């Protein structure tokens, strides 16, 4: 069977695609910054067993890591209104992404913190540094350095996962794809194009994260 490709049918929707890319990136960027911040907090609390937050974060991590992202998203968007908490699709999407990445990055960063040799923490303690000072000056940077590749991968996974947000009508890239193929009836071409865009975004985001890693995490502080 000969199939004749018609990519112009997709190209004419470039505005929708561009908007979709914009939203996907925004969701990823916001999710990454807030999610990793949440994860760092969780990692400290878990690694240093600060009660009762360590247990709470443990529960949270298990809850998120053992349920599908789409269920988490639907719970926030469709479930919470029952409690009177009505969120727009963007608010729901961002909250879901932050909560999801927060849980995974808690465990990733915790691994980094626990990989710091105990002796370095003892040495800092013997210099009369407080726990907070030790964390800030001795633990955080080497810990992030150790887990940066894993953290970068997780952020890319989360970016691809934002496609699920199309299901609550957040107008990100997959939403745009669904919309376009319902208009032009060219599902094959549309999803080829969108898949390639996702591929390019993943490569780009990973490269950007590598740069950030080189610059701020691995780089040694100037004397």
């Amino acid at each position, binding site marked *: 069977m000969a199939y004749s490709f018609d990519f112009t049918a997709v190209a004419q929707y470039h505005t929708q695609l561009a908007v979709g890319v914009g939203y996907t990136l925004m969701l990823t960027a916001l999710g990454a910054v807030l999610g990793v911040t949440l994860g760092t907090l969780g990692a400290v609390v878990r690694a240093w067993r600060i009660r009762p937050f360590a247990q709470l974060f443990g529960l949270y991590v298990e809850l998120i890591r053992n349920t599908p992202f789409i269920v988490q998203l639907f719970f926030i968007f469709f479930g919470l209104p029952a409690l009177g908490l009505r969120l727009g699709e963007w608010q729901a999407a961002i909250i879901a992404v932050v909560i999801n990445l927060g849980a995974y990055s808690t465990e990733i960063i915790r691994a980094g913190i626990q990989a710091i040799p105990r002796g370095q923490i003892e040495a800092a303690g013997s210099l009369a540094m407080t726990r907070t000072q030790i964390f800030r000056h001795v633990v955080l940077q080497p810990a992030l350095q150790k887990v940066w590749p894993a953290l970068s991968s997780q952020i890319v996974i989360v970016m691809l996962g934002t496609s699920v947000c199309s299901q609550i009508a957040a107008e990100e890239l997959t939403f745009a794809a669904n919309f376009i193929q319902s208009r032009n009836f060219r599902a094959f071409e549309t999803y080829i194009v969108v898949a390639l865009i996702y591929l390019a975004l993943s490569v780009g985001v990973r490269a950007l994260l590598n740069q950030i890693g080189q610059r701020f995490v691995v780089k040694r502080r100037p*004397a």
Partner: protein
Amino acid sequence: MLLRIDGLHKHFGANHVLKGIDLRIDEGQVVAIIGRSGSGKSTLLRSINGLETFDDGLIEVDGERLYAGQTDLRALRQKVGMVFQQFNLFPHLSAGQNVMLAPQVVKKTPVAECETIARAMLAKVGLAEKFDAYPDQLSGGQQQRVAIARALAMQPKVLLCDEITSALDPELVNEVLAVVKQLASEGMTLIMVTHEMRFAREVGDKLVFMYQGRVHESGHPKDLFASPQTPELQNFIGAIN
């Protein structure tokens, strides 16, 4: 008297590792603690700056008291510096930054002044030119000297050395011991857990032999090495010679 330890007891679970340690150390003394592994010597040393908690007794350094179960150790730790077997430099900071960090963060000394202190301390351990080098660019002996400089930058009243040459290649041991010897001659109070018996005999003012969680015998190193009073110390000296 600079340091006083009274009736120090410590358990690790059912294991009674320190069974009532009493110790007096004067300012400027160089004290070597020796004994078999498991005799409690490292635990004793680590207790003095709060890295190990203890169950009963009292430690007092320069008027700063530490009781069993005390959690705020900062005042004591400002008076007690420590150097470790594994150096424990901060790998993401240069030698200079390693030395500067505590004065900057703990004492809130202005950065410029911290740098002056750090350069002076590195010069003291013979590493003035290594200010910008990172730990992984330094030999073990150099790393240990940076660790000594880092402890000295806080101007401690006493410096604890926990087997500081044990992780070093034999040819690097002397450069570290030379620094310690120089500190001793400048009047620094030193307490070292060590296997360097010759060094203990040469430089030490006091030798403490630990055996099964107690101070079994103590006195001037020359006397103790020449005529050990207990069979355990005789054995120990015999075993290492």
